[in-house]
């Protein structure tokens, strides 16, 4: 197995694990963490599989750079909404997830 392929498999494990966390956690910050790890897994799959021992491929690398900026924008937006929601409701989980 080459290194690229190895990291693609790591990406698969990260994605599946973080997906489980995303679906089961109720604390919204934890779900955001899970979203970011899922994103990391996806990026590893994207670059790792595309290169797969054939040397660096600038296109998926550029795509991931775009993806990282999009992910941080989404995370920041979510945190802003969460903090505003918390100020109004004293809660860090969605209403249906509060025990």
């Amino acid at each position, binding site marked *: 197995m080459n290194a690229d392929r190895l990291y693609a498999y*790591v990406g698969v494990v990260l994605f599946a694990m973080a997906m489980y966390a995303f679906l089961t*956690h109720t604390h919204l910050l934890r779900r955001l*963490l899970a979203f970011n790890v899922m994103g990391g897994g996806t990026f590893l799959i994207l670059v790792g599989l595309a290169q797969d021992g054939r040397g660096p491929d600038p296109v998926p690398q550029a795509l991931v750079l775009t993806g990282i900026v999009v992910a*941080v924008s989404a*995370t920041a937006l979510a945190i802003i909404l969460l903090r505003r929601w918390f100020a109004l409701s004293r809660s860090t989980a969605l209403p249906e997830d509060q025990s």
Partner: protein
Amino acid sequence: MDGEANGMTISLAFDWVLGVVLVATAAGALFSKTLFRGVVLFVVFGLLMALAWVRLQAPDLALAEAAIGAGLTGALLLDAIGHLKSRSVTPSHNDDDAVKGST
């Protein structure tokens, strides 16, 4: 020839170790007892990801991951934890989600 093959094996071994550590750190970040620990582990995870990008011959991504993935996202999350914790009125229930959050 022999040395080159040795180098390959060593670097692949390094990749294996990094891969396992990445998964372990991510698991820690996702399922840690306290959220604070989770976020700290997430920052570590971001730095390890930067290392993985170096190994994938993607130095641009390593830089971006370290600065944005680990740095800024980490700062955003840590700041949010501080905020949610210090202002919380029902502490046991809301901020430290040991009960609700982890499985």
